[in-house]
């Protein structure tokens, strides 16, 4: 039905009402860019009254550079009919009467009315949505930043621990060597063993200082709602279960106490575990990711991340938490090592269980926050 929508005078007034009361801004311009329709929502959005706008060039509602270029766009379109924005929506900026700008979504349609070409614009203010997106972005970048610091600290702590073992062996062998050289042994041999020992001790002290340096950053823990923490991690980590065809289920026991955690660090652990789980399920027929939160012991809250992937072989399970061990082509193999470091620094534990229904279960505990003092 290509004829007019308007059928009788009563419908005419209904149509006017539709335009007037629409929540979104509705505007019509002609080929010259002059405004022909400008509804109440537009008045609210731009701060101009209809009387100030009707019959004038729409570019006054645009900030630079569009303000100067819009006439050119229009004549280019009229000449070539090459569509850039028409028929699609786009995020652009609007300019208010007071000169300030705001982000808006603009969709443009075109048509012919009484032989005249017109363009219909529908405008939605998206500043709130943008502010929300920005907030999420800020949180994400904060997480990334803290994450990097934590990673560095955990890598250093992990290395300190790993290096300590060979150093211990070196020092022990050296001392045994000194014994073997004996009281009356070659003084040069004894001197060499002595020097090896000194250097091993020196390396040990470097590690000790490194450790002290890492610990200096200190923990940043507070009483947090674990369910909220998990919920945020799902959003911040861009797990996007729907896009990956994953059925995500979060079950939370009732009346859980607050936990004493560094929220961002624990969210890092969660995101890491969830991403691993999601990756493990790529290509699997059944893709179910379950996060369960419950009370473990009187003073611990347990979080489990269960996937329905292929599971983890016994051989891999043994060394899964070691640094630089990975099953991924591009992984550094630090993720789970860091996660375990974070959880242990909280006084908890992180471990792997195999899922009887197929797949892997990672569980970790974090301590319940002490009751606030009366």
């Amino acid at each position, binding site marked *: 039905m290509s004829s007019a929508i308007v059928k009788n005078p009563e419908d005419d007034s209904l149509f006017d009402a539709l335009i007037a009361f629409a929540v979104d801004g509705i505007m019509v311009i002609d080929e010259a860019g002059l405004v022909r329709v400008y509804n109440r929502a537009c008045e609210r959005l731009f701060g101009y009254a209809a009387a100030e706008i009707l019959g004038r060039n729409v570019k006054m509602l645009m900030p630079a550079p569009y303000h100067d270029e819009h006439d050119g766009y229009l004549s280019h379109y009229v000449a070539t009919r090459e569509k850039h924005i028409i028929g699609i929506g786009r995020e652009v900026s609007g300019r208010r009467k007071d000169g300030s700008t705001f982000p808006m979504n603009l969709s443009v349609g075109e048509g012919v009315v009484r032989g005249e070409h017109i363009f219909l614009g529908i405008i939605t203010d998206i500043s709130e949505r943008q502010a929300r997106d920005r907030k999420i972005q800020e949180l994400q970048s904060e997480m990334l930043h803290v994450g990097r610091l934590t990673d560095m600290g955990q890598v250093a702590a992990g290395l300190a*621990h790993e290096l300590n073992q060979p*150093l*211990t*062996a*070196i020092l022990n062998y050296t001392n045994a060597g000194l014994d*073997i050289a004996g009281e009356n042994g070659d003084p040069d041999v004894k001197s060499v063993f002595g020097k090896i020992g000194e250097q*091993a*001790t020196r390396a040990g002290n470097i590690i*000790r200082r490194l450790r002290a340096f890492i*610990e200096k950053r200190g923990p940043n823990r507070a009483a947090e709602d674990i369910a909220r923490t998990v919920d945020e991690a799902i959003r911040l980590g861009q797990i996007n279960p729907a896009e990956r065809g994953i059925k995500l289920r979060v079950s939370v026991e009732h009346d859980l106490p607050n936990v004493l955690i560094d929220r961002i660090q624990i969210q890092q652990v969660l995101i890491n575990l969830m991403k691993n789980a999601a990756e493990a399920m790529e290509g699997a027929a059944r893709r179910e990711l379950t996060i369960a939160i419950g009370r473990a012991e009187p003073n611990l809250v347990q979080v489990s991340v269960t996937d329905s992937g292929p599971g983890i072989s016994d051989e891999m399970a043994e060394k899964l938490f070691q640094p630089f061990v990975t099953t991924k082509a591009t992984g550094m193999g630090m993720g789970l090592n860091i996660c375990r470091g974070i959880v242990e620094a909280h006084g908890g534990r992180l471990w792997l269980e195999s899922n009887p229904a197929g797949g892997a279960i990672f569980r970790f505990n974090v301590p319940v926050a002490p009751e606030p003092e009366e």
Partner: protein
Amino acid sequence: MSAGRTVCIVDDDADVRDSLEMLLRRSHYRTLCFESARVFLDAGITAEDTCVLADIRMPEMDGLTLQREINRTIPGLPVIIMTGHGDVPMAVQAMKEGAIEFLEKPFEKAILVGALETAFARTATEPPTDAAGSRQSPRKSLTERERQVFDLLVEGHQNKMIAHKLGISVRTVEVHRGRIMDKLGARSLADLVRLSLAGKPR
């Protein structure tokens, strides 16, 4: 001949085990090596003329759990705990549960041998829960502030953490720590933990 003084080395790192074995044999101890706490517990070792030198951080069963298992199944068998850096709170807990000493890796031979001698002296003469219980609480000789620092130290807190908790500078904590060690004649944190345990009934 001191025929039977056997040190059971429990560490998941083969090279650490081997090096300890070599060092201790040169010092005339017999040695037995175990790659895990479970293997050790399954070996049916008895307490006589034996002590255990165990790493605190091992997969499956850690040193602290091993200490508890030994308390339950081989009471009287002395345990020395080896720690990496950062495991001090766990090591302190192990001492509270009866470990003789903890050694921070890497350690000098003299320190290791000193700890072993203490351990064997205990198997030879003293009942495992020793006479310390009759001693006065060591905290009596300390000032109020020193007592606070002492209590946090023996819980395994780092100086930095203690400074934070008490709202004083790290430097001040170090000074207090030095005075506490002097007053109590302690040479190491392990000594302090031992002293703190001595003041309490087990």
